[in-house]
């Protein structure tokens, strides 16, 4: 039935649907189930920040579903709510599917009530009906439909039940004429609605839907209705009526906030509806729900944070331990592949391009795919189980001290995967200065693309059994430096009001395997695609710059020396010397030499300096650059040709530490920088970010380099 080929939107039998619901009700998952589309679904507030559209055909209709970001109510509190509110009020669509969580109807119908004042055709999808069954919540969907005047369908996006019925209900509602929903208010409000509607009737005001509806909107201070009526002659007499009505209602509700008045009105109406239609079967005991039992442990005031740290530590251990098994195979494969392909190419230059340039560069990046997959699985689990919100809860106290917001944790953790979605998810922070602050710190959370560099270096300098711990330490120190940086920024650049911390703690859910699979698969394919295209190109460029110009003079000079030399050892040494001399006078060598003085104080030579520069394009390129730089001319002396051993041989430990510190802290990749600039709202922020990260990275690398030298007592030698 479903078929996700995009179709022509201009057709007679076309239904454009706005999918609306509160956060965490499974909207994205519902779209997934209806259309088999690949959307990312998470179990914390704010996964769908931008609206996304899905197309599919069914029962001779073309459907377009616009997945709107989750909103608790019609407010402009967060960006998500603003996007949704704007869309619903200003754009054209045929029908609303309001997705609600059957296990929490009371809260969810609050939004439904607000949607009912929009005068749009609507279908209510009672999602998670299977969970409701399990929890002993019995909903009379038919009676609910009757009471609300809206068709209500029980569905379960997770179990894929009720999808056909939902689509039928959508088509039936679309084909039928608009039915007014039945929204009933308290006596006081109904009285005022009556007075205003009667006045409108008297003056023969012709409303699109009804004068009752206009009255409700006026009482709610709905901007558009106000604007329409404001220019009409009847406004002069209507205005005093409205002021009188407001006064009456406000006294009745003991508040001067219209939003609050209507929220209370809706809540009362919904309570009535729920009493009529929902039965809560008594559970045998007052048994603690699974979520409660999990929470007892996971957000325990003492154990909560250690448990979180332990889970993160476990993730990095796994990343390293399990990841290293297939790595050896991949490494061996590319070695073999390079040799085999190389043997078939007669031309020296072409062979060097293919083997040392493309295969070495791409191979170096592909090598880390297993690590990336494990890291992405970990983050996907964290997102989809609902644990993320718990951590935000646990960490808000600490984060707040550092000038961040508990919810900053969500973009920050996303930043461990990739900075780009992290920058975008920072939008869940409403307060501008909190958001900017978070944006500035995200880069300190080492993204997945930096992982290869860390794995390479920890693998080169630490024993297998502690490398995982070192990896974890690198990530944690990045995060700690990020927190300190946030504090510094908060005290200097981003002074301002703190945003309140009010967050829903969603129920724990077992992550759907299919969703995790899709998320991880999509991300991994993106990583590999990047390796095959962008990084292959960059490797070729680095290869070219490091192989040309080829000095004939040097070659002849060394050829003569080699001929005169006695013994294989001397020949080997001279060959290596010749290669090094060639590399040094290549374009890349010249660039590197020119910038080397800047990097000498932090213990980096020109090769590492060049690798850092190429990392500005993408962090994976750092590894491929090192792969190319250490592959060119290695054959002569190395028996073991892996990059790891090359790193171990050529780079002193202190320089490696300094290099890692720079990688950890300096500017994110080009794509991420572009997104950062867009999200922060101007190129000037990028300039700040550039100076801020460069200064931090340089200072801390300097410190780390000299500390390591002092501790290890090693002489300050540059890599060779």
């Amino acid at each position, binding site marked *: 039935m479903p078929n996700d080929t995009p179709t022509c939107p201009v057709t007679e039998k076309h239904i454009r649907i706005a999918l609306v619901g509160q956060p965490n009700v499974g909207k994205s998952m519902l779209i997934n189930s209806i259309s088999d589309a690949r959307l990312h679904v998470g179990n914390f507030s704010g996964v769908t920040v931008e609206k996304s559209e899905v197309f599919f055909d069914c029962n001779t209709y073309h459907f377009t579903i616009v997945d709107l970001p989750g909103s608790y109510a019609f407010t402009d509190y967060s960006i998500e709510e603003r996007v949704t509110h704007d869309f619903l009020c200003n754009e054209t669509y045929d029908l609303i599917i309001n997705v609600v969580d059957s296990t929490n109807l009371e809260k969810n119908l609050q939004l439904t009530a607000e949607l009912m004042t929009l005068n749009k055709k609507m279908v209510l999808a009672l999602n998670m009906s299977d969970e409701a069954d399990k929890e002993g919540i019995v909903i009379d969907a038919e009676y609910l439909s009757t009471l609300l005047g809206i068709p209500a369908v029980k569905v379960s996006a997770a179990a894929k039940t009720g999808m056909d019925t939902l689509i039928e209900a959508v088509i039936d509602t679309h084909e039928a004429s608009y039915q007014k929903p039945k929204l009933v208010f308290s006596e006081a409000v109904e009285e005022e609605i009556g007075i205003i509607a009667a006045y409108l009737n008297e003056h023969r005001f012709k409303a699109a839907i009804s004068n009752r509806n206009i009255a409700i909107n006026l009482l709610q201070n709905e901007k558009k209705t106000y604007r329409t009526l404001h220019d009409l002659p009847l406004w002069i007499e209507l205005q005093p009526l409205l002021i009188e009505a407001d006064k009456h209602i406000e006294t009745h*509700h003991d508040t001067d906030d219209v939003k609050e008045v209507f929220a209370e009105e809706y809540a009362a109406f919904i309570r009535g509806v729920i009493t009529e239609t929902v039965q809560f079967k008594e559970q045998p005991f007052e048994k603690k729900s699974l979520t409660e039992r999990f929470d007892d442990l996971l957000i325990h005031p003492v154990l909560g944070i250690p448990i979180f740290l332990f889970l993160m530590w476990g993730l990095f251990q796994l990343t390293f331990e399990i990841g290293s098994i297939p790595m050896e195979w991949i490494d061996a494969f590319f070695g073999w592949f390079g040799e085999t392909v190389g043997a078939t190419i007669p031309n020296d230059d072409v062979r060097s391009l293919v083997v040392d340039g493309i295969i070495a560069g791409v191979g170096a990046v592909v090598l880390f795919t297993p690590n990336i997959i494990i890291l992405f699985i970990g983050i996907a689990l964290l997102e989809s189980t609902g644990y993320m919100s718990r951590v935000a809860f646990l960490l*808000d106290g600490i984060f707040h001290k550092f000038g961040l917001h508990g919810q900053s944790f969500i973009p920050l953790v996303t930043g461990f995967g990739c900075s780009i979605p992290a920058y975008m998810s920072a939008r869940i922070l409403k307060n501008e200065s909190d958001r900017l602050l978070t944006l500035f710190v995200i880069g300190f959370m080492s993204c997945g693309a930096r992982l290869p560099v860390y794995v390479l270096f920890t693998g080169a300098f630490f024993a297998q059994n502690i490398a995982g711990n070192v990896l974890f330490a690198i990530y944690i120190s990045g995060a700690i430096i990020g927190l300190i940086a946030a504090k510094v920024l908060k005290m200097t650049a981003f002074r301002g009001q703190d945003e309140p911390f009010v967050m829903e703690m969603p129920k724990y859910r077992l992550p759907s395997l299919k969703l995790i699979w899709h998320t991880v698969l999509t991300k991994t394919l993106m990583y590999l695609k990047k390796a095959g295209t962008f990084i292959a190109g960059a490797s070729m460029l680095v290869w070219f710059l490091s192989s040309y110009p080829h000095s004939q003079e040097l070659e002849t000079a060394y050829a003569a020396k080699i001929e005169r030399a006695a013994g294989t050892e001397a020949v080997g040494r001279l060959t290596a010397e010749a290669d090094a001399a060639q590399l040094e006078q290549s374009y890349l060598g010249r660039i590197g030499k020119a910038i080397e003085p800047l990097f000498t104080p932090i213990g980096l030579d020109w090769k590492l300096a060049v690798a850092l520069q190429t990392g500005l394009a993408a962090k994976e390129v750092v590894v491929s650059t090192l792969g190319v730089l250490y592959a060119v001319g290695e054959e002569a002396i190395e028996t073991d040709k892996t990059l790891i051993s090359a790193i171990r041989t050529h780079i002193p430990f202190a320089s490696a530490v300094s290099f890692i510190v720079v990688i950890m802290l300096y500017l994110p990749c080009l794509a991420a920088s572009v997104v950062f600039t867009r999200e922060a709202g101007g190129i000037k922020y990028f300039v700040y970010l550039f100076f801020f990260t460069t200064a931090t990275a340089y200072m801390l690398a300097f410190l780390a380099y000299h500390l390591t030298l002092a501790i290890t007592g090693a002489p300050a030698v540059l890599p060779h």
Partner: protein
Amino acid sequence: MKGCGATVVKLHAQGPLKQRLVSFGVMKGARVEVIGFAPARSTVEIKIGRMRLALRKDEAELIEVSADA
């Protein structure tokens, strides 16, 4: 404190925070229950209806409640 039920009497919050609380269902007459605290009691988790909500202590103090007898 913990595990105690109470009824919201008045919201002393203003502006966006008030709107936010209201849209979460924290409004006059709503029943709330304290579930637990984060380390250092900086943040509190409450249950309102069937939903769980995390609040900073400063914000929670703006919700006036009357404890159940």
